[in-house]
């Protein structure tokens, strides 16, 4: 049996490692050892689900999963809906907590995206919680819930329209006190579908010739809004998401296959383009939205 020891922190910085190591496993039996995990955010949990599904697809059987020893961590993962989403992908070494512990409000627990109706459900679900979190915790205008909902809708549709396979979405707000001194909203969307390169190959690969790769496919979609549809009016989703995330000084990154591309704000240190990652199926989108820094003394006073 091959054992994948998961890092103590499952987040946007460790998700590539999880995906890469999953691809490198060649044995039939796989154990995801999460005993030492102390922290998991939407990117980490959704990446784990992708890793689980990739393992099932390769071996035809569920991977073993040792749940975290820390009860706060398992309680939080239950609260985010991880174990419910993962039960068909992993065999847990012990019964995971059914009832979530703590009363941490969740912006958007892990939800599967398999149909158009799921996207409506996601948009509807955040209407109650997102407005208050965006305005009170992130200091965004009260109206920000609308563009945030549009981002959610577009990233989830990316799964349905381009991946042609189911995926997951999750979002939560955290206090990045040490790292940034501010709260940050973390939104993760991932699927196990065709990925950008396969989706765009028929329409666009000829123009790139030998340069056609996961990286050039991501650049074409990310920078120029190309899609697999011959209709030149399509392809606004990713472009508009990038624009709106930029307005909020956020970070947007997309991994597909062996590459990851990112729009990187000044507070973030991830590289704008990573290549030569392991060939993991599908696409994984990460959006980080930091709290807005009050600009005027009046605003500072109001937030004090």
């Amino acid at each position: 049996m091959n054992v994948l020891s998961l890092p103590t922190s499952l987040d946007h910085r460790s998700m590539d490692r999880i995906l890469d190591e999953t691809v490198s496993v060649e044995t039939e039996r796989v154990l995801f050892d999460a005993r030492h995990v102390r922290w998991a955010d939407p990117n980490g949990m959704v990446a784990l689900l992708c890793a689980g599904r990739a393992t099932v697809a390769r071996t035809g059987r569920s991977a073993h999963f040792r749940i975290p020893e820390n009860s706060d961590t398992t309680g939080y993962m239950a609260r985010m809906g991880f174990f419910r989403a993962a039960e068909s992908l992993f065999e847990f070494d012990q019964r995971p907590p059914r009832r979530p512990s703590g009363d941490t409000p969740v912006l958007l627990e892990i939800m599967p995206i398999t149909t158009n109706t799921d996207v409506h459900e996601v948009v509807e679900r955040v209407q109650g919680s997102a407005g208050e979190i965006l305005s009170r915790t992130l200091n965004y205008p009260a109206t920000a819930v609308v563009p945030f909902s549009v981002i959610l809708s577009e990233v989830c549709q990316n799964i349905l329209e381009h991946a042609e396979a189911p995926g997951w979405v999750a979002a939560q707000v955290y206090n990045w006190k040490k790292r940034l001194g501010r709260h940050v909203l973390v939104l993760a969307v991932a699927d196990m579908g065709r990925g950008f390169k396969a989706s765009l190959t028929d329409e666009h690969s000829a123009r790139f010739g030998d340069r056609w790769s996961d990286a050039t496919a991501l650049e074409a979609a990310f920078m120029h809004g190309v899609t697999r549809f011959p209709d030149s009016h399509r392809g606004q989703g990713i472009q508009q998401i990038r624009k709106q995330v930029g307005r909020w000084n956020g970070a947007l990154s997309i991994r597909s296959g062996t590459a990851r591309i990112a729009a990187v704000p000044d507070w973030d240190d991830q590289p704008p383009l990573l290549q030569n990652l392991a060939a993991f199926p599908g696409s994984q989108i990460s959006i980080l939205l930091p709290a807005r820094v009050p600009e005027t003394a009046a605003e500072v006073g109001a937030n004090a």
Partner: protein
Amino acid sequence: MRSVPDPILIEVGPLVRESVASLYSHLVTRPTGRAVRLAIEAMLAEAGEPTITLVDLTEITILDYSCADEVVARLLRRYSEIDRPREAFFVFRGVQERHREPIQAVLERQRLAAVSRRDDGTAELLGTLDEDESAVWRLVESEGVVPDERSDDVFGNGSLRTAVDRLVERRLIFADATGGMHALSRLVAPVAT
């Protein structure tokens, strides 16, 4: 020869709820947008010709880019093409600040423009027009209707005159059988209250 069209009102909120069989009024996802556009087209097919439609977005809370493309841009494009299915004109109502960004984005990308009727009865243009087209549109809008015999006085014989033809082609003003130019916002007034 075209007579002045009878206006019809289409409320998008109920169409969304029918198309996704739910109580949501969020116009999101391309399949939903496509279903709503097809429902609008089906209603148009049963109306007289030419038709002017007041498309009411008032009940719509969230409008994403895919739906703005389907319900606004594609609708306008389809009925301004040479092989359009019928003579149809559109005015949008209930375009709130939260809808503006996706609508502007899809219109600008496709070099389209749309007339929007504000709550106070005045109208505005969304999308892309050149200076002459904007000037002509404002003139027609302020006059309500410019009869053919006054067109030289109002538009002159220079660049504004050619802009009039472009606006007619783009379905942003209505030209009646006598050559009179009508503001779309006035034509929908009977169903706007």
